[in-house]
Each structure stands twice: as structure tokens, then as C-alpha cells.
């Protein structure tokens, strides 16, 4: 009996590697510490009522951001481990198997569990405030989305200590990801972790499209809407078309692995090329899904800190919508080398290049927003300015990759690695950082320390170029991705060392940010104006920071593009806004169902990972029960009465 248990445990838990053992111990200690702290400070009830069951978009947004920063840490550690391994040829720091797991989880975590939730966090906190809404269209569904993401991410990360991580690359090309070549449970974790959180992403896409289309303040016609909200709309349109493809593709892969189907296998009439087409039909729009909101953030930040109207508003809107539509016609450029023939390659090369046009236009519009402005070099603005040259160079190498016959020499080399990190870090990460710094006071009521923020900024930027510029050259020197060792004769070592140094500089930058947050929490100055930077242009800056639960006591008629900017000018001239009488505010009630139902999905996913139907089936039954219970709940809303609104507003604005 004991022997059986031992044998089971040695297979169930990942064992044998000191790095992983260390991680297991630290995870266990962290969990114990969290439980002790919560119990000691009697915070369990607070955690449950204020956070786990909340449907408030602002709190959900904050939870998304916390989760994504944790995932940034994990993905970053993965990156540093890889860079350490590559600093020396034939180094044995990471075994091949371990290295393969780490680059797989690095990719999945950074895109799906870091970039996506950071983006959703900003969507959640900002969009309703920016369009003058009191919550999103479907608050319950919103909470559901978050918890599906959260438990999906937990399931995926669990593979690190239990069962073994996936190791077939971040897109898990079959037949490598099929049972024939990956018989372990790692790929099952991959499928279920992404599947569960992916459904949450799809729901978020629907939620924000409806929110933006139906819940804007009176007077805010679509062409008066702030640019960030436009970027969210275009991103969400891409989500609702792209994510169903991901769900179906992973489901087919699941059928292959679980029921022995042959959709993507080599034998039985399956075709791996089908998978590769499908996954990139999602995967390519996905990169535009994450970068479009960053474009929206830059538009807000550049206009605010240049203290000038955004240049070329209509062009910007058109360019964004054009990008989100064109993104669906470029997927085959990820495999020009699959030999689809000259006609196919020529078509996809040209469609890919076409995307450079609206992107280029946006860059010029940002530049000419700065032109004849009065630029303040705050941290958000610094990220926005650093983004422009970085993204333009990344975009240029992207155009080079789109030249199909030239791509035959770039494909899967470090040139490609450098390119997509440049657009994803230089575009997406810089963009979300700009947004995070810019809206941080709106979320928490105080600014992050600018001095430490600038240290972090320079470390990030210098680290970025030191890390990734050498990788372009390494690609041209023939270094291909996903190798853990290389021959000394290739002359790749010096540049790899440089690149590793750059990666560690970015690691230091992250530590600066952690320090910055901790320092600011301790020593911040409370913002009492609501318009913390003093340069706000849009609705979210007209209300106190952090916003009260109902956001707007009364909803203004926002019939100008930079309504708050214009309103401030009017007030300076002594024109006071027309008072709108307070009315009771209709709000959604908290619910525990999203948390519990997502936990049931997690349980079901865990059961399917190990093929343990005795866990999977109860999990699915739990999901069904949650749906039934919700269907018969009628008491899901309440009203905030006028005198309570008055009290809250007096307390929040009294400090003015």
C-alpha cells in the first residue's frame, strides 16, 4: 500500500530537479503564509465578500492586473532561465526536456496569462468610466470571465509541479502534441488550461462590445468616443471571431488525445497542417487583439501629456478597424515555408504588408499629436515615446518577414524571435505599462513614485535593446529557435551573452517596479482631485479616484471628444455645468456562482487532464448545478438610494 502510494506520488508530482523542488517548497510556503495572514487578520470574510464574489468591474479589473503581474513574474523567470542556458554553448544548466517545457510555458503564459489579463484588467477598470457607464453590460458574466481565466491559469501553472509541463511549443503543433509524441499529461494541462480561460476571454469580448455599443453616456456618439474605448471595441470584435476558432481547434486536439480521433494525427487520415492553419487563424488575430488596446492607450497618453487634441481622430478609428479586419487574412504568413505554392504565398505576403499601412498612419498621427504640444515627461508619456521607435523598427522587421521568399531565410530563426518580442514588448508591454502608470491613480487614488518609475523605465528600455538587437544578428547567423545547446564553432556565443545580459537588465527593471509599487503604497500622497495628472481629457477623470461603486452619481451629457478637457475650460471661464437631479442607482448584486462554477470547471479540467472521470464528471455536474441555480435566481439587483449617494459623494468630494 505504502509502496503504491510512493509510486503514485513520484509520477503525480514532478520530481528529481532541484529547481522544481525549490519551486514546490516556495509555493507551499507561500500558500501557508497566505492562509496564516488571512486568518490572523481575520480577513477571510472580507476576501470573500469584497473580492471573490464581487461583480464590480473596477475590482475585477484590479484582480486581473494582480494575476497578470504574478504571471509576468513567472514568465519572466522562465525567460531568464532560458537566457542563462543559452549564454554558453553546450551548457548543461537546463536539460533538453526542461528547456522545452520552459519555452513552451513562457510563450503560453506571456500571451494568454499575462498580456490578455493585463489587457482585460485595463478594459474593466477604464472602459465603463470612460464612456460614462455604471458597470459593464453583464456584470455577472464579467465575474465569470475573470474566474474562468483565473482557474484556467491555475490549472496550466499547476503542471509545473504536478504531472509535468507541456513541452511542444506555445502553439502545440501536432503531431508533436499528439499522444504519439507527447504521451504525458503536460499537453492535457495545456488544452484544458487554455480552453477554460479562453471561454472567459470570449465572454469578455461579447461583454465589452455590448457595453460600448449600448451603455455610452448620452450625447457620446461613436465618433465622439475616446480612442481607448474605440481600440477596445476593435479588439473585442476580433476576439469574438478569433476565439471560437481556438476553442474548436483545442477541442479537436482533445478528441484526438482523449478519444483517439484522427483530426490532426499522421495516421488515420488526419492532417497536422489543418491544425496549423486553424491555430494561426486564431493566433494571428490574437496578436492584434493584444496590440490594438495598446494603440488606444498611446492615443490617450500622448494626447493627455502633449496637452493637445489627438491628431487625425477619424484616421485613427479607420486604421484600427482596418487592422482588426485585415488581421483575419494574414494567418498563412506564419508558414510560408510549408510549401503552399507561389499563389498562396504571394496573396498572404501582400495582405500582411497591407497591415503596415494603417499602422504607419497611426504612428504619424501620434507624432503630430506631439507636434506643437506641450510635452510633459511623466512615466506614462516616456513609455509612449519609447514605444514609437521600438515599434517602428519591430514593424519594419515584420514587413521583412512578410516578404515570403525572404521569410524562407528568417523563418523560425532568432530574427523572428527578435521581431515578435520587439512588437510584443515594444508595443504591447510598453503600452500596457503606459496605461497602468497613467490610470493607476484612477484605480487606487494615488500615483506611483515617478522617480523609481523612471529607473524602471530606463532599465526596461536599455535591457530590451541589449537583449533583442543581438538576436536579429543571431538569426542572420543561422541560429534557430527552441534549441537549448549550440556548437561553439558557430560564433553565436558573444551575442548570446550580450542578449542574456539584456534579459537580466529587464529582470532588474521588474524589481524596480515591484519596489516602486511597494514604496508608493507606503509613502503615497492621496489624490483629492480625481484628475490626478491634471491633464485628463476624458470622462474617467471627472469623477473621484478611486471611483465610487456606482462610478457616476449623475451621468453627464458627453457630446464632445475631449469632454472633460472642454468642461474644465468652461469651468475656468465660470460656466458651471447644469445640475442633474440625483436618482436612485440600479446596481447588480454580488454572486458566488462565478467563483464556484469556475472552480467546478477547474475540477473537471483537472479530471480530464489525468483521465480521471471520477473527478471530471462531478466537476461537470457542479457546473450544471451552478447554471441551474443561477437560472432560478431572481434577486440579482438592488438600488442605491439618493441619500446614500449624497453621503458618499460628500465624503469623496468633501476633500476638494
Amino acid at each position, binding site marked *: 500500500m505504502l509502496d503504491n502510494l510512493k509510486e503514485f506520488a513520484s509520477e503525480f508530482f514532478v520530481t528529481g530537479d532541484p529547481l522544481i523542488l525549490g519551486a514546490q517548497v516556495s509555493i507551499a510556503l507561500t500558500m501557508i503564509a497566505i492562509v496564516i495572514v488571512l486568518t490572523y487578520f481575520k480577513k477571510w470574510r472580507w476576501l470573500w465578500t469584497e473580492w471573490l464574489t464581487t461583480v464590480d468591474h473596477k475590482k475585477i479589473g484590479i484582480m486581473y492586473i494582480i494575476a497578470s503581474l504574478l504571471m509576468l513574474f513567472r514568465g519572466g523567470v522562465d525567460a531568464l532561465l532560458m537566457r542563462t542556458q543559452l549564454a554558453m554553448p553546450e551548457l548543461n544548466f537546463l536539460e533538453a526536456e526542461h528547456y522545452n517545457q520552459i519555452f513552451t510555458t513562457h510563450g503560453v503564459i506571456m500571451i494568454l496569462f499575462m498580456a490578455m489579463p493585463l489587457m482585460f484588467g485595463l478594459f474593466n477598470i477604464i472602459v465603463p468610466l470612460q464612456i460614462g457607464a455604471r458597470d459593464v453590460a453583464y456584470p455577472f458574466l464579467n465575474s465569470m470571465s475573470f474566474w474562468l481565466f483565473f482557474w484556467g491559469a491555475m490549472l496550466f501553472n499547476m503542471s509545473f509541479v504536478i504531472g509535468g509541463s507541456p513541452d511542444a511549443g506555445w502553439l502545440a503543433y501536432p503531431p508533436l502534441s499528439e499522444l504519439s509524441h507527447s504521451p504525458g499529461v503536460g499537453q492535457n494541462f495545456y488544452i484544458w488550461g487554455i480552453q477554460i480561460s479562453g471561454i472567459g476571454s470570449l465572454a469578455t469580448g461579447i461583454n465589452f462590445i455590448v457595453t460600448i455599443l449600448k451603455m455610452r453616456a448620452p450625447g457620446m456618439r461613436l465618433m465622439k468616443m475616446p480612442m481607448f474605448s474605440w481600440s477596445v471595441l476593435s479588439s473585442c470584435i476580433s476576439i469574438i471571431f478569433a476565439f471560437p476558432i481556438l476553442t474548436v481547434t483545442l477541442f479537436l486536439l482533445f478528441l484526438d488525445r482523449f478519444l483517439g480521433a484522427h483530426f490532426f494525427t499522421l495516421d488515420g487520415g488526419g492532417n497536422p497542417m489543418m491544425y496549423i492553419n486553424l491555430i494561426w487563424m486564431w493566433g494571428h488575430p490574437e496578436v492584434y487583439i493584444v496590440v490594438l488596446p495598446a494603440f488606444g492607450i498611446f492615443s490617450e497618453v500622448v494626447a493627455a501629456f502633449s496637452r493637445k487634441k489627438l491628431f487625425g481622430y477619424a484616421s485613427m478609428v479607420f486604421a484600427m478597424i482596418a487592422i482588426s479586419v485585415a488581421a483575419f487574412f494574414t494567418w498563412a504568413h506564419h508558414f510560408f515555408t510549408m510549401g503552399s505554392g507561389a499563389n498562396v504565398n504571394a496573396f498572404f505576403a501582400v495582405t500582411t504588408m497591407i497591415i503596415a499601412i494603417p499602422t504607419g498612419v497611426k504612428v504619424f498621427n501620434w507624432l503630430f499629436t506631439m507636434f506643437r504640444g506641450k510635452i510633459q515627461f511623466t512615466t506614462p508619456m516616456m513609455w509612449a515615446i519609447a514605444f514609437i521607435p521600438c515599434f517602428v523598427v519591430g514593424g519594419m522587421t515584420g514587413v521583412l518577414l512578410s516578404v515570403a521568399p525572404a521569410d524562407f531565410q528568417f523563418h523560425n530563426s532568432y530574427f523572428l524571435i527578435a521581431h515578435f518580442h520587439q512588437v510584443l514588448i515594444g508595443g504591447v508591454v510598453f503600452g500596457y505599462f503606459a496605461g497602468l502608470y497613467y490610470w493607476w491613480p484612477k484605480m487606487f487614488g494615488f500615483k506611483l513614485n515617478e522617480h523609481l518609475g523612471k529607473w524602471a523605465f530606463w532599465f526596461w528600455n536599455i535591457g530590451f535593446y541589449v537583449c533583442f538587437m543581438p538576436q536579429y*544578428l543571431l538569426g542572420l547567423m543561422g541560429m534557430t529557435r527552441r534549441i537549448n545547446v549550440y556548437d561553439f564553432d558557430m560564433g553565436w556565443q558573444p551575442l548570446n551573452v550580450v542578449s542574456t545580459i539584456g534579459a537580466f537588465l529587464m529582470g532588474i527593471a521588474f524589481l524596480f517596479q515591484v519596489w516602486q509599487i511597494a514604496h508608493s503604497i507606503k509613502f503615497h500622497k492621496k489624490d483629492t482631485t480625481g484628475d490626478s495628472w491634471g491633464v485628463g481629457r476624458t470622462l474617467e477623470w471627472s469623477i473621484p479616484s478611486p471611483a465610487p461603486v456606482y462610478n457616476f452619481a449623475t451621468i453627464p451629457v458627453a457630446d464632445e471628444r475631449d469632454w472633460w478637457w472642454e468642461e474644465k475650460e468652461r469651468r475656468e471661464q465660470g460656466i458651471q455645468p447644469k445640475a442633474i437631479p440625483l436618482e436612485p442607482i440600479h446596481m447588480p448584486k454580488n454572486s458566488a456562482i462565478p467563483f464556484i462554477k469556475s472552480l467546478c470547471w477547474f475540477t473537471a479540467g483537472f479530471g480530464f487532464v489525468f483521465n480521471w472521470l471520477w473527478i471530471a464528471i462531478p466537476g461537470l455536474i457542479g457546473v450544471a448545478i451552478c447554471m441551474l441555480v443561477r437560472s432560478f435566481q431572481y434577486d440579482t439587483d438592488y438600488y442605491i438610494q439618493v441619500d446614500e449617494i449624497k453621503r458618499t459623494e460628500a465624503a469623496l468630494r468633501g476633500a476638494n
Partner: protein
Amino acid sequence: MTYDTESPYHELLDEEMKSVRPIKRYLVPLLFVLVVALLSGCSDQIIVLDPKGPIGESQKDLIYIATILCLIVVVPVIVLTGIFAWRYRDKPGNNATYKPNWSHNTKLETIWWGIPVLIIIALGIVTVSYTYKLEPSKPLVSEKKPITIQVTSLDWKWLFKYPEQGIATVNYAYIPEDTPVRFQLTADSPMNSFWIPQLGGQIYAMSGMAMTLFLQADEPGEYYGSGANFTGRDFAQMTFKVHATSDAEFNDWVKEVKSSSPALTEEGYAKLAEPGSAEKQAFSSFPAGLFESIVTKYAPGGTHHQHGSADMGMPQPPDPGKQQQTASTADNHMAHSSAGH
């Protein structure tokens, strides 16, 4: 206040250039020196830009053309970013024009919609013509008849078979210089990508089909090759050298392999195909139809995996007389399948 819709850029350039000139005077030469130092230090190792065959040569030209076209936009954007950020910084004493409501100018916006459109049209035309010119299955123009090498990606080694010479190697290959090489690629493993940077770009090696890739070495040398698409645990071990030699040396090498190496048997192949890395090996012969059987074992019915530039299902027997015909068949397939899409 009326000039802002007329020509904001002229006035701008005059006033801006003065203030940045001192910085630029040092920065530009410094950058230039740095880049030159870096490139001269390892230029012979930047193998993609040091091609030794016609395909790689064309691809290098294309890379340069595309880069120059892109720089037309990229350089001004980077310079303007620096100038604007400096010129319009909010500092006491900075009396640059401030126009908080200037947000639209049709002429300017037409310019920066127009320029990228023109560049992309130019690049698009170049790309499309090179896409047809460099289609990997297109035979190279040469007086010599091509030699065929059948390449199989295994877990985790490359098997090269010379059907005309009747020999096989693992993880290295010899080719005669100045002679087109017709690589037929397949995989008895997850899909891989076959890449010899100095000869020219890569193409996938996939199970159930035989892809065609024509390459040629213009001078003798030792060229690095590798797999570029991840296939599992020991993927990093899948590197190989291609030795381009004179015809005479090539023939000597073939003779030597024939006389001194063991034969590859069916059992030997099965053992070779087992997962694991491998040392360089040579075989004096291999079972007839081995390549064909590797391809067809994944392709029930032979026609199921019809695909672009690949020779479908059964590869043509390596009969030199049929070479031209094979290639044109492949092209027909390509045209057919593309039209079908």
C-alpha cells in the same frame, strides 16, 4: 496663427534642425563606428547575408531591397520622434508654438496615407515577382543535370539518401558544386524545416508528402544546416554540414562510401528511426523504395495529402530523363491547388 494649415513642416525643420545639430554631430559617427565594428567582427559568420548559391543570393538581394524600402519611412519617423520630443518639451523658456486644438490637416494625412501605400505597392510588386521566381520546387537553370537527394527528418537526426548513387548518410551530406540539387523532403517524425542558410531558404519536411527544394552551391565549402521547426527533445542535435566539392571529389567520396560503409537495411532503418540523437554515419546502400515507403506509410491512398509544391504521394523515380517532367507536374499541382483555394 494662419500658417498652421499651410506648411507646418518647413518652418518646423528650420527651427528644429538648429537645436539638435550638436547632438547629431557626435551621435551619428559614433553609431556608424559601432555598427561597422560589430559587423566587421563577425561578418563572415552572418551566413544569411553571405550566400554561396543562386537562391541564397536572390534572397539576400530581396532582403536588402525590402530593408531599404522600409527605411524610407522608418528613419524619418525615428528622427521626428526625437525632434518633436525635444522641441516641444514642457520646460520654462521653451517658446515653441503650442496649438492645443490643432488636430486635423487633410494634406498632411493624405501624405502619410499615401507614402506607405506607394511603398507597399512597390514592395508588393517586388515580393510577388520574387515569390514566383524563387518558388522552391522550381528547377534551377543550369547546364548540368540536377542530382537528387532524398532527405528524411527523423527523431532527432537527418537521413540523406542519394538514389542515383545508391548511398545514404546521416547528419552530413556531400554535393557537387555548381550543380543544382533537388532535395526531396519528408519526415518520419513531427514536421521539421530543412535549412541550409548559405545555399538558400528553408522548406518544411512533413510526413506523408515529399516536398521539393532546389538549391545549388556556387563554390566549394562547408555549409551549416539545421532543422528549424521544433520536433521534440533532442531537436537541438539536428545540425549537419553540407560539403560542396568538385565533381571529382564528390565522385571519390561516393566511391569511398560505397566501398567502406555498411549497408542500411530495413531493420537498420527501423533502429535509426527510433527516438534519439545520432553521430554522423554513412551507408553503402539502402533498401529500394525506402523513401517512397516512408512517404506513403502516412498517406493512405496516396492522394490524400495533396499539397502545393510537393510532389504528391509517390515521388518520381530518380530517372534523370524524367526530371523536367516531374518539375512541371509539381507546378501544375501547385497551380491547381491554389486555384482550388
